[in-house]
């Protein structure tokens, strides 16, 4: 069981604090065979590193507007990022309005950074904060007020779209996941039945099918004249898919909470919801945290599916931009740039999750 307070001692590591030479002797040059292997492998690594360094730095072109310069160079053409970064990052959004997207990203990152700070974990702070920032982001993205030009969601793209999809998925998906997980273990047969059917059916089909339904089938059921924004539909679609997987992860956490916790709560007369909210869920979420993070990181990458409604998230926007015949050859550099952005967010997320686990272990949260 994940106990919050007793810091788990790190497993004993005999290599810790060993002098470097001693460490190498022990781990790399233990015997002749190992030494040969070590030498071969380090030679391979070093030559590869050298090749990469020559390609990426020594022979690379960093700034130019002329594809011809890149053509003549032997190395990477990082200049493509300088030339194409705006359509890659912002998609089809009108060029002169890109400042709005920059502002949107700033507002978003500020909101996220504040929300991740345990000191602000208070609904009286977080709810207004998110309402304010979602409003600000909506205004910035759509415009149409305060003299901002109206931009329909069909023209959104790139990083802001990825951010909106990802955040929407998590914000809608996590509560649904918790409810599904609770429903699946509910004493009420009705709640249990609904949750099981929901989870099993949706987990069994590919995401693309769910999105197809959300985009093409769902509108058929709406009354005439009523329309739900396509982007919203697809966000909900991805969120529900996310929720079904996440629900199973949370259920695992719920199962790991010992029965005695329920009994102790019952013995002091807590109601079902009080028990769930104050006793069971906090412990279950702590236990399931590593897998929850896992699914959240995966959700970030599922955002590329918006391509099916003709929207371009950061990845598909880049593919589209790289159709340009003048710069097409430098797609590797462009994709590396995008990979770096994904990596940045993904890595930040997992570092943060590690930090949360640490806080849990020292009993801070």
């Amino acid at each position: 069981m994940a106990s919050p307070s007793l810091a788990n001692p790190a497993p004993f590591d005999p290599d810790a604090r060993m002098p470097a030479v001693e460490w190498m002797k022990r781990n790399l040059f233990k015997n002749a065979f190992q030494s040969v292997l070590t030498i071969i492998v380090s030679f391979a690594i070093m030559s590869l590193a050298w090749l990469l360094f020559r390609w990426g730095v020594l022979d690379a072109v960093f700034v130019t507007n002329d594809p011809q310069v890149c053509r003549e160079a032997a190395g990477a053409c990082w200049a493509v990022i300088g030339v194409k970064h705006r359509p890659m990052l912002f998609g089809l959004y009108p060029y002169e309005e890109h400042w709005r997207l920059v502002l949107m990203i700033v507002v978003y990152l500020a909101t996220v950074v504040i929300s991740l700070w345990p000191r602000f974990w208070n609904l009286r702070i977080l709810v207004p904060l998110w309402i304010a920032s979602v409003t600000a982001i909506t205004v910035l993205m759509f415009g149409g007020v305060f003299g901002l030009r109206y931009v329909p969601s069909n023209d959104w793209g790139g990083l802001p779209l990825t951010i909106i999809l990802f955040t929407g998925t998590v914000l809608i998906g996590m509560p649904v996941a918790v409810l599904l997980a609770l429903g699946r273990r509910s004493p009420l047969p009705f709640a249990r039945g609904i949750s099981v059917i929901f989870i099993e059916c949706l987990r069994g089909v590919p995401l693309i099918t769910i999105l197809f339904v959300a985009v093409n089938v769902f509108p058929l059921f709406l009354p005439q004249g009523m329309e739900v924004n396509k982007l919203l539909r697809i966000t909900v679609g991805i969120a529900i898919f996310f929720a079904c997987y996440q629900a199973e992860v949370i259920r695992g956490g719920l199962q790991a909470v010992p029965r005695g916790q329920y009994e102790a709560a019952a013995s002091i007369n807590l109601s079902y919801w009080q028990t769930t909210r104050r006793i069971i869920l906090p412990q279950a979420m702590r236990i399931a945290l590593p897998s929850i993070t896992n699914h959240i990181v995966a959700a970030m990458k599922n955002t590329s599916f918006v391509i099916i409604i003709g929207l371009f998230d950061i990845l598909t926007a880049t593919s589209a931009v790289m159709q340009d015949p003048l710069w097409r050859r430098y797609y590797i550099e462009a994709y590396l740039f995008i990979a770096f952005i994904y990596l940045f967010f993904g890595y930040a997320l997992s570092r943060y999750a590690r930090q949360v686990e640490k806080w849990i272990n020292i009993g801070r949260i």
Partner: protein
Amino acid sequence: MLDTHDTNDAVIKISSLCKWFGQFKVLTDVDLEVRKGERVVICGPSGSGKSTLIRCINRLEEHQSGHIWVNGLEMTDNIKNIEAIRRNIGMVFQSFNLFPHLTVLENLTLGPTLVRQMKKKDADALAMQFLEKVCIPEQAHKYPLQLSGGQQQRVAIARSLCMEPEIMLFDEPTSALDPEMIKEVLDTMIELADSGMTMIVVTHEMGFARTVANNVVLMADGQIVETGPPESFFGNPQHERTRTFLDQILKH
């Protein structure tokens, strides 16, 4: 209004209680009466149904036939009854069952603030009062797993007391503890007994039974075999089963 039943002066009255786990009959026609301020110790071999019996009293287990009245109120499926009865009953478990993600103080104030709707400040004061009673006020801001077993069990007792129950149930409160910690928990329980609390204690601590109990009950195979005040229960047991049990347990 809830149904009430005249149980004379018994705060707990159990009559012909039967319980099955599936096909397996755990309790057979159990009758028991506990008067206000009385201390009853239940002992018996492992698997004889002691835990099941006291867990039926606050509905951690459901019985299939027979009756349980607490303060004249019958324990039924009715959630109102269950809540009303649980309000009068505190329970201490063998494995403490403290909430590990909450501090000691939060463990104690959770019930008072959520169930009894006390203000946080009042609940804190109440909690500190009971922590002092169990002699660990200085641990209020630690987490349960930072405490020793004996301290954890005393916190668990204080947590129950914060609900200000009339009756306390103890299910082997000392059997998960190291010998040197058993005494501190027993001392707390003795103090509680001296304050006039009605208590049902499942335990194998025969010293405790001798000095504190008004009545000692032996259970075997889901039935009550013998009941009596400690002098006669230990000094002059009526049943062979009691004698063999006492022989075994006192030898250790």
